[in-house]
């Protein structure tokens, strides 16, 4: 496991006017930090010097302000970005060039309070996280290919969050951006429109859905009305053409309903770009609420497989995250993704004999290690030919918006005058072209 934050071991940064620093190469620049390891010669002209904890006795004293990194953060290298916390006691690693996907935390505040949240929300003023993220974006290479904004709930910052997205579109125009959000704020039509205008097609909202109706979802996120706001938010984004990923976390309460949740999505939200069916990360609340959220994935394997095949049959790109292959029905192996980030991925000792380990997501190194009683090495590799990991973000959009108004003519009085705003009345789900193969 790779640490992403730590306490500053020692520092000489009195009067330093910036907190976010990118590590430069050998060319000195006041905007870059130089990483000093054993044998590195400090070059005057860098704005900050980062000293590796294991650097030993430096050849020369750093010719400027400097920080001694803790041992667990001493891996940072050229291109990486670090940030000093506002109280100047800690360092966070904001960007690792070696990582295939970088997650950027925007806030710890959230209006959901999920039973199994891996990043428990806190009521704090942490606007500085957003500000540091904004600085980070301005330092990235223009051809950066992608990143994930996570929280807490990023949309809690409203227009400041949208401005961050706008900066991303300008400064890293090719980046595919994923925003992990509970989606509730998008139920506000004006906000959804502003978001869609900024986000365009390059920002995907990853939105959790934990039930097929309000009672289960609202219980799991511990917030009344959350389901309706989230689904309305999804509908608003869809009508505006914004890419959407739905994320369903399988835990003790959702697993018995996973087939219904899949059917709800297939029938009501078939236009989404992807559905991710995700295993638990036993950290944060999931750890403290262990008895209320843990279920052995073996116990729901059949239902998970049927749900995944259902979504797949409905033409919805579907991925299974955080589930070890030995616990998955082989029919859905092709949908399984190596989803656990490199910095927190591990395997069990028993996995050493497994022939599909290289294709398997492994285990979270974070939090409590809770392993299914049914983990076992897989000895037959042949069916894996088709078990290529799924793509994580689908480019192609599967619905059209802006179709002309379609009048309702139903005998059901309930829907004769539905409470719809203008935008939604023009929105129909078109998931595929009309059938062409049916002769008389």
């Amino acid at each position, binding site marked *: 496991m790779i640490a992403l934050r730590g306490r500053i071991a020692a520092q000489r940064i009195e009067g330093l006017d910036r907190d976010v620093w990118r590590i430069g190469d050998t060319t000195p620049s006041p905007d870059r930090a130089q990483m000093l390891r054993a044998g590195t010669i400090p070059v005057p002209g860098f704005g900050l010097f980062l000293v590796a904890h294991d650097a030993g006795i430096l050849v020369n004293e750093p010719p400027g302000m400097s920080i001694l990194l803790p041992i667990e953060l001493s891996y940072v290298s050229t291109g990486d970005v670090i940030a000093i916390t506002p109280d100047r006691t800690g360092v966070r690693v904001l960007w690792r060039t070696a990582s295939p996907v970088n997650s950027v935390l925007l806030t710890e505040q959230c209006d959901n309070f999920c039973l199994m949240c891996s990043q428990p929300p806190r009521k704090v003023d942490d606007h500085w996280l957003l500000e540091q993220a904004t600085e980070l974006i301005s330092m990235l290479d223009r051809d950066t290919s992608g990143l994930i904004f996570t929280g807490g709930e990023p949309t809690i910052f409203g227009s400041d969050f949208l401005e961050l997205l706008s900066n991303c579109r300008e400064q890293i125009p090719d980046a595919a951006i994923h925003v992990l959000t509970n989606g509730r704020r998008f139920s506000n039509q004006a906000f959804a429109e502003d978001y869609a205008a900024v986000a365009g097609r390059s920002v995907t909202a990853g939105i959790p859905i934990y039930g*097929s109706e309000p009672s289960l979802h609202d219980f799991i996120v511990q917030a009344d009305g959350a389901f309706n706001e989230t689904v309305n938010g999804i509908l608003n984004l869809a009508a505006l053409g914004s890419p959407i990923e739905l994320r369903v976390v399988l835990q003790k309460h959702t697993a018995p309903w996973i087939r219904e949740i899949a059917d709800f999505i297939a029938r009501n939200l078939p236009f989404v770009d992807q559905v991710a069916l995700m295993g638990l990360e036993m950290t944060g609340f999931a750890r403290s609420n262990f008895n209320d959220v843990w279920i052995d994935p073996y116990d729901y394997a059949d239902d998970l497989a049927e749900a995944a095949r259902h979504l797949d049959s409905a033409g919805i790109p579907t991925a299974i995250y955080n589930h070890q292959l030995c616990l998955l029905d082989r029919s859905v192996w092709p949908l399984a993704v190596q989803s656990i980030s490199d910095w927190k991925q591990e395997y069990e000792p028993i996995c050493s004999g497994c022939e599909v380990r290289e294709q398997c997501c492994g285990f979270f190194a974070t939090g409590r290690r809770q392993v299914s009683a049914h983990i076992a090495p897989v000895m037959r590799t042949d069916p894996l030919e088709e078990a290529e990991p799924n793509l994580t973000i689908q480019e192609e959009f599967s619905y059209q918006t802006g179709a002309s108004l379609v009048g309702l003519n139903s005998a059901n009085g309930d829907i004769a005058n539905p409470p*719809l705003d203008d935008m939604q009345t023009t929105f129909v789900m078109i998931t595929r072209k009309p*059938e062409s193969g*049916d002769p008389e």
Partner: protein
Amino acid sequence: MTFHRLPAGRVVVANAAGEHVLLERSEFLELSEGRLEDLRLIRLLRSKHIIRDPADSLPVELLALKVRTRYAALAEFTKLHIFVVTLRCEHSCQYCQVSRRSSNREGYDMSEATAVAALDVAFRTPSSSLKIEFQGGEPLLNFELIQFIVQQAEQRALELDKDVSFVITTNLALLDDNVIRFCRTHDIGISTSLDGPRDIHNANRPRPGQNSWELAVEGIRRVQEELGHNSIAALMTTTEASLGRAVEIVDTYVELDLLDVFLRPISPYGLAIRSRSHLAYDVEAWLRFYSDGLSHILDLNRLGVPVVERYAAVILRKMLTNDESGYVDLRSPAGIGIAAIVYNYDGDVYASDEGRMLAEMADTTFRLGNLHEDQYEDFVLGEALLAPLDESFALSAPMCSECAFERYCGADPVYHHATTGDFLGRKPLSAFCQRNTGVFELLVERHHDDSFARGQFRKWASR
């Protein structure tokens, strides 16, 4: 909420979009009497938008979205354009839906002028994607006109930025190199008849030499080899001789690598009604036949043979998705005129192929006009089309409006006109209603009780 009691006692409860749950009778009574307390069931019924919290408007919005989606395709009428290029045929089938004419008789071919007038109408329809189907008689007896129409249509499609595709419905007896070459060049599909094993097919389809089956099989193989497996679809007609032999029929299709099987009922038109052969078996017998065939197809699926039953696929698409099926005969509003329209060899325009068959029996109810006398507006806005569409619309039809299966079913004004003399029909006496209700019951139960079938059904629904 609508409901329907299954023969075994369970109750199907459905919402306005056709989503359903299957309840035990006791559960249904609790629901209908407002004393349901089982939280799992309440949650399930809320998920399916069958019940809702009165303060909760989202289920209503989602239902409206689903219903709107289903009807959205109506704006794009008319997709299927049937050109009867000749009434001549060299077969003499007992149940032929159009009166036979011996193949050497003149005066039953469509002219170029009529074809041009028909294309004028076809390309005025709002549909952005047209399908032109050549029918007869045996259309290959007038292959020259087919070539003319294909070339004209391709040119118009290019000019108007529309898609056009073609299919020839033929018994394959006249398939030659020239036809194959033309079909390959213009990507034309072939639709043919295959009633199952040799004895059934040849008994149904007499021709000189008694070799209809052999010619069909030879033609099917040839099309598969030279035009590709996706270029051919075969349809069967069910007769009394077919009943009890569903498994053999399915196996014949599979042996020929025809993996779409359409287990159809016989239709009561044309010679079929005159020979009364549609009365020769009852709905129950047909449903047994259908059930046998469907079970056998699912068993083949279990062995890995990807064969599909098309009628089930049509219904399952309506049952399990928000999309309307492309199938013309199971829609409400009815598919006549707005899903398919027929241009007869003589320039008469009919609202459906069955409507044309009735006209051959001197009933011109579904004749919309003539290409040489009337305009496009006369065809689509005339009472001959609007009255049957309006009067048969299932959501306003007695017994259909409150039927749990309404979303899976359709309106068939031509059938009901032919059998009871009005567009609406009387559902308790309607073989259309009985037959389809039986199929819906079968499919709902299989979908609920058999997880393998459920997985297959979802694939069929979305293909």
